[in-house]
């Protein structure tokens, strides 16, 4: 009898009720994504005078970077200005945008805006017919903060920065400074010494700088213009120093480029 009871009870050993797992996060993944999108949208829209957007098309940054101004409105529209505006273009073009969920929040310029989509349009004569300049108009939002928002191009993987435009700054005046910068820094070649190594700097076909040194070595650095100089997409590393940007000194007798960082690098412009 005792045996029978033991046998009868035996199956109970097999059972165990799964205890509720402690949740790592209080909300579901979908809720957290929804919240993150709301937060990101608020950050984008809260820049009252919009953002300076530095867009590098092409997964190899073949053409360097370009400056756009973008203002995200709460009615789902975005107003854009471009340094590549031609005389027949309006000052700004307004189109639609969405922030939608994928693996993370994605900012998409999802109706046509020639200032933005110029960089991704096939048949753009700067690139192959089916690709154009190979730029993005969908960006993963990596980090959104009022002082800087970091995006990553979905196709190119390029890092795209948004920095807020100061309140009271006039868009047209500010954009003119970017346009003028590209005009006045029209040098072709310069010479200097970086970290003890003699270099010759030449402008590439688009917005790239080629640094030649030690015989036949070369580093190609994509850059974009700011009113003060040239900012690099990735740092130039040479002779133990790192250079991220160059200031342009518009001396009529001896125009030159100076490291915007803490080295005393100077590149004398030898050919304009």
């Amino acid at each position, binding site marked *: 009898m005792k045996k029978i009871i033991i046998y*009868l009870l035996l199956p109970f050993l097999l059972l165990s009720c*799964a205890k509720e797992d402690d949740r790592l996060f209080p909300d579901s*993944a979908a809720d957290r994504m929804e919240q993150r999108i709301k937060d990101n949208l608020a950050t984008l829209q809260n820049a009252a005078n919009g953002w300076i957007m530095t867009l590098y098309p092409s997964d190899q940054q073949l053409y360097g970077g370009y400056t756009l101004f973008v203002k995200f409105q709460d009615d789902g529209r975005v107003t854009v200005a471009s340094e590549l505006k031609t005389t027949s273009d309006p000052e700004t073009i307004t189109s639609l945008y*969405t922030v939608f969920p994928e693996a993370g929040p994605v900012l998409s310029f999802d*109706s046509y805006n020639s200032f933005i*989509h110029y960089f991704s349009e096939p048949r753009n004569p700067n690139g192959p017919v089916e690709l154009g300049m190979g730029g993005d108009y*969908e960006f993963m939002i990596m980090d959104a903060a009022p002082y800087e928002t970091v995006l990553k191009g*979905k196709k190119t993987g390029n890092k795209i920065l948004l920095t807020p435009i100061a309140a009271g700054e006039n868009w047209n005046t500010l954009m003119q400074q970017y346009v003028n910068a590209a005009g006045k820094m029209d040098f072709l070649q310069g010479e200097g010494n970086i970290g003890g190594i003699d270099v010759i700097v030449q402008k590439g076909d688009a917005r790239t700088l080629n640094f030649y040194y030690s015989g036949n070595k070369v580093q190609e650095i994509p850059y974009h213009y700011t009113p003060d100089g040239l900012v690099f997409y990735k740092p130039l590393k040479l002779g133990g120093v790192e250079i991220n940007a160059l200031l342009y000194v518009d001396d009529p007798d001896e125009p030159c480029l100076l490291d915007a960082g803490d080295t005393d690098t100077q590149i004398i412009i030898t050919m304009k």
Partner: protein
Amino acid sequence: MKKFILYVLITLPATLWLGSCSEDALNSESTIKETPRVENEFDRWLFKNYVIPYNIQVMYRMEDIESDMSYNLVPAEYDKSVQIAKLVRFAGLEAFDEVTGSQDFIHDNFPKSFLFIGSGAVRNNGSEILGAAEGGEKMIFYRVNFFDQQNNDVVGLVFHEFGHILDARKPRPKDFDEVSGSGYVGDVYDTHYTSREAALRAGFLTPYAAHSAAEDFTITFGEYFYHTSAEWEALLTTAGADGRAIIMSKFEIVYAYMRDEWNLDLDELRTVSLRRKDEAKNLDLTILD
């Protein structure tokens, strides 16, 4: 041992029943969230003019998961999307409403979504795709940003793709395929027939009609009712006696198929759609009424 197994077998169901855990309540909130978009004037117009009468969703904003990712595409322009949506409704969908007497025909048979793309789908040799009807469920309109009200073939494209869909729903008669039989040449149609005249003489209304019987069928359908009788006659004259005979025998099959399978009178459809084509040139496509 046998006894042991017996006891276990007897008690197991009971213990499982007794020991079953309390059931978790289902969360009533969906984990699938809608993309947060602010509804605009065009969205409301589309709901009233496409969703309610025809159950058709117009996707005019770029959604890469809906598009063909083997191409580099750009989104459609808002204003051009408005114009095309208005034109397609007036000159395309409503032509069928008028001929069939209700919105049911389009509601029941038309693809359920439109996707508007700003650029063409450009291949590396420079050629482009202008439109596509995927599996009868989605119609893709490329080159929306190049739309010109006075000079476009958007509605012709809609009719062409719709021809494919009708064909897929009720297969065309086998007789049709046998008329041109081995004359179909597939992808080399444009090198095989370098001019429209050459195609016509071989019994194809356009070079592309020589691609396959399926294309030939829908081209015969669309070309007939979207040309005036004078234009149609001119095509047949260019085709010569042999070409005319081949085209006409295919046309008669298409005509009978549309009448018998779909209750569509192609002559009536021609009258209505050509009238609407003319009227559409003067339509204000920019106002969302």
